[in-house]
């Protein structure tokens, strides 16, 4: 431990020093081409205090207090003509972290003077030790690396790369900064382009091991592998990556499934896309083939040994200058279920001043390609997935409960009306049915008892003024999610004649806004907020509750920004208010420092249907980024 800390400290220091001095330079010649080297370093120091979620008997509620990390991402990229290469090295050094004995003592004291304190302490010590065995562990590892070749006709990459085929039904691995997720394929990708009889032809083939980010900076948890899940060429792609470790609480076993800190069995994937396009239409056929190892979690997706997903898409990029259209139909074959399918379409019609966007989805037994992660020991990585079926919802919607989109039919129509050069209004209406939101329905049985009907409506405006230096966007909306069969107060389906039954599964009204007011010169004032009135029959507090935030910012362009935030949540089990402040300074457009101090409420955050639960935060976070 001491050695790894020293290594991490040394590397972080080197990286930080590197970031502090200009390291973008011409490194010489490779043949006739000059070699450009760019260095980027992003450092985060985050100190967590008591985040006010402590509850009796809950190890996880005390294990997330009083820890600190120096997380560093060091990027080195080089370009020379048609060649490029890069490496990103991540290091995490936890300079302070909870001790399992102290956690067990804290919970024993919180329990009070009840019998068998020693037995209770031993139980909590075991639980705390197991919880911390893959959390707050220092690591330094090659998070991403690649060598690439790029010419007008051929592109090839060996190493890590992002990929999306179609609209994400078949394959979508990408970076989601908002969710602290960054997944790539570590392997080989080749793309060839040609023109055949006036048509564009593009063929892409890729394959390799899937490479999610291994350290979750929000929780301090890491994903570990061992020799049992890195056979063959995976031993190469997993070289240098964080390993499962044995501790006083977790014994090493020869099998990842029973090794407590072995939490990821790298998935292997092969995929290809053939695209044929003209100016009028683009047709594409794409498929992915995911190969699992022994499942570490037992849902239908993670326990499928092989998953084949394929789709055909057609895109009309220009409808005579009046819009565009897209249609994709996919099939998916899981081990334990009948084949599933998905159909997604979008149509944009532009007849100024009116623009209409219509999206529709029809999914049956169609699942995102979840990573083979051991959720019982690394729940924070639940969101790691290799596909992202479109939701036909606003990207920030976080109320698609349970497996909503695996068995659904619905769509959304959004109309934007341009009232003037700087003013527009919009309205959208979404109508969706899901048979997998209020019941576990992996088979996608579309009987009425399983059905949830959803209305999601919103309207808003976008206004700009002062040569667009001031602008305002605001949305007011509501979501009504009802079950076909009534629910009782406990959340079970009602029996005939049972009192106090309701069809309301979820209901919400909300206001979102982002207002920037230019004050003259370099000064500007900004207000951002999202205020929600919510009701959730199953899993909610029983009554309606309010939650939301407002952030007030002040900017002196281009260097300084200040912000003060207030968050609130009226659920009785949670703290009601949260306060925070942010200071940011940009030395150059690429080099900046920011300091966040204060509290942030725990929340489910979603981007395009990919969601994760963030725990409440209380502490300080310093970010320093330098690009050259």
């Amino acid at each position, binding site marked *: 431990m001491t050695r790894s800390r020293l290594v991490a400290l040394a590397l972080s220091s080197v990286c930080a020093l590197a970031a502090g001095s200009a390291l973008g330079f011409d490194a010489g010649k490779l043949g006739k081409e000059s070699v450009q080297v760019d260095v980027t370093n992003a450092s985060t120091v985050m100190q967590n205090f008591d985040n006010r979620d402590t509850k009796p008997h809950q190890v996880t509620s005390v294990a997330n207090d009083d820890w600190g990390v120096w997380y560093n991402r060091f990027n080195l990229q080089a370009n020379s003509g048609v060649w490029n290469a890069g490496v990103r090295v991540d290091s995490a050094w936890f300079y302070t972290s909870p001790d399992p004995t102290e956690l067990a003592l804290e919970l024993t004291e919180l329990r009070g003077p009840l019998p068998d304190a020693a037995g209770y302490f031993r139980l909590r010590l075991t639980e705390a030790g197991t919880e911390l065995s893959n959390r707050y562990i220092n690591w330094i590892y090659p998070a991403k690396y690649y060598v690439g070749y790029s010419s007008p006709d051929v592109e090839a990459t060996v190493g890590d790369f992002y990929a999306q085929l179609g609209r994400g039904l078949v394959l979508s691995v990408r970076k989601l900064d908002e969710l602290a997720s960054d997944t790539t394929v570590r392997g080989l990708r080749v793309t060839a382009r040609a023109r055949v009889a006036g048509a564009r032809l593009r063929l892409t083939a890729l394959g390799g091991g899937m490479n999610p980010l291994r350290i979750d900076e929000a929780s301090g948890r890491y994903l570990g592998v061992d020799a049992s899940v890195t056979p063959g060429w995976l031993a190469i792609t997993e070289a240098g990556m964080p390993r499962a470790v044995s501790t006083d609480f977790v014994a090493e076993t020869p099998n990842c499934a029973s090794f407590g800190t072995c939490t990821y069995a790298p998935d292997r994937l092969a995929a290809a896309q053939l695209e044929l396009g003209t100016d009028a239409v683009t047709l594409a056929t794409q498929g992915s083939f995911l190969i699992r190892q022994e499942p570490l979690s*037992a849902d239908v997706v993670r326990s499928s040994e092989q998953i084949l997903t394929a789709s055909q898409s057609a895109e009309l990029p220009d409808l005579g200058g009046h819009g565009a259209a897209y249609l994709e139909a996919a099939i998916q074959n899981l081990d334990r279920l009948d084949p599933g399918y998905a159909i997604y379409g979008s149509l944009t019609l532009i007849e100024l001043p009116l623009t209409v966007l219509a999206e529709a989805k029809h999914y049956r037994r169609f699942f995102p390609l979840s990573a083979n992660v051991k959720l019982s020991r690394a729940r924070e990585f639940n969101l790691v997935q290799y596909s992202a079926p479109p939701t036909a919802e606003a990207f920030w919607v976080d109320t698609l409960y349970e497996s909503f989109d695996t068995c659904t039919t619905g769509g959304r129509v959004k109309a934007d009306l341009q009232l003037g050069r700087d003013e527009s209004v919009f309205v959208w209406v979404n109508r969706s049915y899901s048979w997998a939101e209020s019941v*576990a329905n992996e088979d996608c049985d579309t009987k009425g008892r399983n059905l949830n009907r959803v209305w999601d409506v919103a309207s808003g405006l976008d206004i700009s003024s002062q040569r667009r230096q001031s602008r305002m966007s605001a949305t007011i909306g509501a979501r009504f999610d009802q079950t076909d069969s009534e629910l009782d107060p406990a959340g079970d389906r009602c029996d005939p004649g049972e009192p106090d039954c309701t069809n309301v599964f979820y209901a919400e009204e909300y206001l979102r806004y982002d207002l920037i007011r230019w004050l003259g010169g370099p000064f500007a004032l900004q207000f951002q907020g999202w205020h929600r009135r919510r009701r959730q029959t199953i899993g909610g507090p029983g009554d309606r509750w309010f939650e939301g935030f407002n952030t007030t910012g002040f900017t002196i362009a281009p260097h300084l920004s200040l912000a003060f935030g207030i968050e609130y949540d009226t659920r009785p089990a949670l703290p009601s208010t949260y306060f925070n402040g942010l200071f940011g300074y940009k030395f150059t457009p690429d080099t900046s420092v920011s300091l966040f101090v204060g509290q942030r409420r725990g929340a489910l955050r979603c981007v395009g249907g990919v969601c994760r639960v963030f725990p409440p935060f209380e502490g300080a976070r310093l970010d320093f980024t330098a690009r050259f």
Partner: protein
Amino acid sequence: MRVTLAGCAAIALAGCGSNTPEIPDELKHGGNAYGVEEGDTVQNFCFVGFRDAARASADPSTFDTVCFYDYHDPNATKGYALLLVNTAAVWCQACKVEHGSLPDRYAALAPRGLALISALFEDSSSDPAQPKDLDAWIQAFGVNFPMVLDPEYQMGVYASRETAPLNLLIDARSMVILKREVGDHPAVLWPFVEAKLAERGR
């Protein structure tokens, strides 16, 4: 009132720890006492609640003590082939969804040798579950299997509370953990249970 009920439940819970049998040495997997991973021997946790859910009430004086090893059947004399230990919490949507069908699953598989214990560990505010919560849960979902309180969340050694529900499938003959599953995944869990029952000639 809440404190009193919690006190009663805790005293009853503590009491059950003093008169339970220890695991015979031959059952200790790999020479170690107990473990929490698949393939390990399960520890003998005891709880208070209702062995017969039809007798449910919010009165702690009516509670039974129910232990994992009550279902230990090394010589196949009790009729148990498998023990499924399930967790639930009032705040947990997936747990409620799962319990919507759990009584029917149990009714179908109990004659083939499946024993089932469900442990309710927290209320809607994520505070320790109380006797009244257990009673309300049993009534709401028509529970027909042993259901107990786990206010101190002993089951936390198997999986953190956030991942509820937990389903721990245990071989009743050896008390070895066959499967540890978090979340409600009926398409995977129940075929596995049926396959394991079939392997045992049930």
